[in-house]
């Protein structure tokens, strides 16, 4: 597994804060009440994917930067 990149799409994020509750060290809120990534800090990739899954809006994307593989959301969700 290479470098993991996590991004939040602000055209989708509604500020449910679920990511923040599940992983408070990774996610925070910006001034608009939308989620931002404040640092992965060695968080394991399974936990990141499981947290991304909790987003009701599928706003969180988890990618392997080295291979370019999108680990979440899965293609079948059509996001």
């Amino acid at each position: 597994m290479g470098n993991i990149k996590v991004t939040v799409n602000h055209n989708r994020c509604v500020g449910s804060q679920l990511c923040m509750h599940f992983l408070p060290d990774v996610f925070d809120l910006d001034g608009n009440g939308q989620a931002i990534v404040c640092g992965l800090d060695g968080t394991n990739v399974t936990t990141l994917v499981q947290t991304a899954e909790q987003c009701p809006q599928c706003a969180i994307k988890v990618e392997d930067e080295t291979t370019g593989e999108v680990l979440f959301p899965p293609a079948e969700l059509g996001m």
Partner: protein
Amino acid sequence: MYTYMTTYLVKDDLMAPEVIADPHAYYRALRETDPVHWNERWKGWVLTGYKEVVDVLRDAENFSSDRMGYLASELTQEEQESIAPIFHVLKYWMVFRDPPEHTVLRMLLNKLFTPVAIERYRPMVRKIVQKTLDKVVASGKMELIRDFAYEVPMTVILELIGAPDLDRDKIKEWSEAIGVFFFIKADEPRRREIACEGINAMVEYIKPLIEHRRENPGIDLISLLISAEEAGQINYNDVIATCVLLVFGGHETTMNLIANGTLALMEHPEQWEKLRNDPKLLKKGVEELLRYDGSVKSTVRWAKADVMVGGKQIKKGERLLVSLSGANRDPLQFDSPDDLDVTRDPNLHVAFAHGIHVCLGASLARMEVEEAFAGLISRISCPVLEDEAYLNYYPSVVHRALKNLPIRFDQIK
């Protein structure tokens, strides 16, 4: 037009027949003149601008959803006791709770309602849609709500709670009674009593089901709630209240969404054709139907402190009617907001609200509505309203709910 707008504002009547028939015109008039408006008649603020709506919904620190707490503060002890069932059940509803209690319940239930978790129900929903359409398409006409829009979500929610054999007619009747308290007939003098009867009946009906699941756990929602109760994460009141919430909330709003969406497409047949020619557009199309005429027009919050919203001073304890429909037609957020465009993207509407109370069932509703329209566009031509039928909406500040939608169409063979 100007005179019409002035009349709206002077009357401040959220239940006026013309406002119920066309809330969008009313909200537009408000948004253009006073997006954070003190409604003297309702004794609260009405918010219709996207930015103000989103700011309030995303700020749970300053704005409370504790409806039962605020209601209790307005009633005497005696009055509270007269509607005890409403308090006993509804105060445990997630939608009316603030953090930290809300957070515990939400994190627990959210796992079952994620977009990924919901996908597993898609084949079942597709089958229900086809079976329901099989019964009606050949006749070339149907009452869309009774014959189609109601069947799909009701069947699905009963499957989800693991009780497909529950009596739907009873659940519908009790749900309507509970709805009287929130949504419909705000002028009904017995509305609290009617709601109490509905809640009591539903609780008594659900209790044995919970006990049955305690003895025979499955993979359904009730079993999940029981295991959380047994692990000490939630209590028995949470279990009962949440079951009532799921059954109540699980069908009506989705039903109205299918109906409102069908009507919107009937009024824009070129958009129906776009979906039919390219069903891949359905995901975006559903988002647009949600934005254009969603089933929940507004939600309520209470200020927990003195706060400024859109340049107006809101005082601690004051209530706010947050207009989702108003925000969804705000030209500052959406280009040509009064146009229906099934290709609209991005489309960050507020139909499911924003913030911590964003609809738990959003992914389920999206999938059900997507499947409902996938079924409709593949089986029938763009419908038209039955001759001599006219559109009639339930008088509600919150719900956008048609009483019925009789349609004619050609079957696609």
